[in-house]
């Protein structure tokens, strides 16, 4: 498994949100990145984090208790691949998440499995493995808080966080 080292400091300066995510805080999960260098959040700038998050799409969703990539997910990931192959100064951390309908340990393993599926896909399409880190949050970081499928479907996700940091 790879990890951010030198990149952490740089990533904190340039993209606070992504760094918060890596530390397990919830503040930046939507990837809005307000208050940081505008070139990173300007959704009209194709090389920005904001463009990646909103136009390319930073997340893919999964079916209940599954880690199979849906056609929609593959389409999103193909966009991520193209972007990452063009913007080689960015590295990624892929967060795997589960909904609340599972036990804690199982959901940690399921989140890891989901993050791993996304990593494997990106790598299979040419993104260097050493640019990708993964982390599972299990059911610890829900985005949507209601206890019905409408919320659960948003929480069963893998989020690709990009930052201008180095992984080693």
């Amino acid at each position, binding site marked *: 498994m790879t990890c951010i080292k030198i990149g952490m400091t740089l990533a904190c300066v340039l993209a606070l949100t992504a760094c918060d995510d890596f530390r397990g805080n919830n503040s930046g999960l939507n990837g809005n990145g307000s208050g940081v260098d505008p070139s990173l959040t300007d959704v009209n700038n194709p090389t920005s984090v904001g463009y990646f998050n909103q136009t390319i799409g930073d997340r893919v969703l999964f079916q209940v208790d599954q880690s199979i990539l849906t056609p929609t997910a593959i389409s999103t990931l193909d966009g991520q691949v193209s972007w990452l192959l063009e913007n080689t100064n960015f590295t990624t951390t892929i967060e795997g998440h589960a909904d609340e309908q599972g036990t804690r340990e*199982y959901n*940690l*393993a399921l989140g*890891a499995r989901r993050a*791993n*599926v996304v990593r494997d896909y990106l790598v299979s399409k040419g993104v260097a493995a050493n640019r990708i880190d993964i*982390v*599972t949050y299990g059911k610890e970081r829900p*985005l949507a808080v209601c206890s019905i499928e409408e919320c659960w479907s948003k929480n069963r996700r893998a989020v690709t966080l990009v930052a201008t940091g180095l992984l080693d």
Partner: protein
Amino acid sequence: MIINILHLLILAVLFGFPAQSQENSGPLRIEITEGIIEPMPIAVTQFLAENAGAEAFASQLTDVIIRDLAGSGLFRNIDPSAYIGSISNFNAPVSFPDWKAINAQALITGAVNLTSDNQMVVKFRLFDVFGQENLIGLQFAASSQSWRRMSHKVADQVYARLTGEDPYFDSRVAYIAEEGPKNNRKKRLAVMDYDGANPRYLTGSEDIVLAPRFSPNAREIIYTSYETGVPQVFLMNVDTLSRRVLDSERNMTFAPRFSPDGRNVVMSLSNGAKSDIYSFDIATGQKLQLTDTAAIDTAPSYAPDGSQIVFESDRGGGQQIYVMSANGGSAQRISFGKGRYGTPVWSPRGDMIAFTNINNGRFHIGVMRTDGSDEKLLTGSFLDEGPTWSPNGRVIMFFRETQGSVGAPSLFSVDITGQFLKMVPTLTFGSDPAWSGLLE
């Protein structure tokens, strides 16, 4: 005769009492079976303060003892307003007819003495009222700061004598204290007495912490923390709070549990798409892979003799419970009921496995024999999860999370017969309880 029960903390002295037995109708004993409907009526009389300093402690001690015994569901304390007799001298003979008249099966009397250096002596006696027999006479001495533990020790003695079972009141629980909204929950590692008293926080809330487990002597805790950015199992000394990551490599590790001898920790290690079970030698750091399938293998728990491990796996397609040798190898599936099964925990008696069952969108805490037979679901709700056994294997604590946007977890306990469900009080939301063994 002096028995050193708590190292130097509590000294217990057995003392006799003049035999008064007139009629003997067999030993006073409450049989814990499937169908206890009537708790045994007992009279726990107000402990006497033998000097002025002891007054504040005497009634609190009595309250804790009553709460322990009544809280087990096996005993009912008779309200003092019904008393005919009274206890004004700890050493005076007991007038049994007064206690028979109110149908007290057992009578507990006690006295507290506080010395100038804050040492406290607690004496108590347990009587079989109808047998007119003094069953126990004991005294404990310790710092007055330990008055709650002394109360639990008294209740433990009574519980053990009247049930024939090992006791469980003098024990602690490690858990996760939770605060804040559901989408920004702050979690801290905490420990408390089994009844929720004396809570103490062992970590801040900067990093997510999960699922603590006590070492066999309750001096150390293993838990999962995101302190390094990914979930990793940490080993913490409860007294010094010093801690370290168990795996020297930067792997995602979780779901740890100590071996019965405290030398090894068994846990899950994330390995690509799969999670495998490893055992870690705490002293040498050496790790041994115990499972190797494409599946999620997690939530391992040792049998009390250390020979086997129960764990959950989705190797058969869904989350189910398996048993394997402590050295790994082939595993036998034991859960065959409806739905998914996870978080198996081997009972300290060795005869049962507690688990979480998920079926039709509801979560249950249940127990089964170690071969999977005699399954019984004890609870059910939107989310009941994470059972942990009392030191004597009679009670299970778990957490129950309510649903919806303001949903939050609380700790509950339930008897293994499925009776006496009750909430365990915590200052914050609480989850992931882990019961210690009986304290030494």
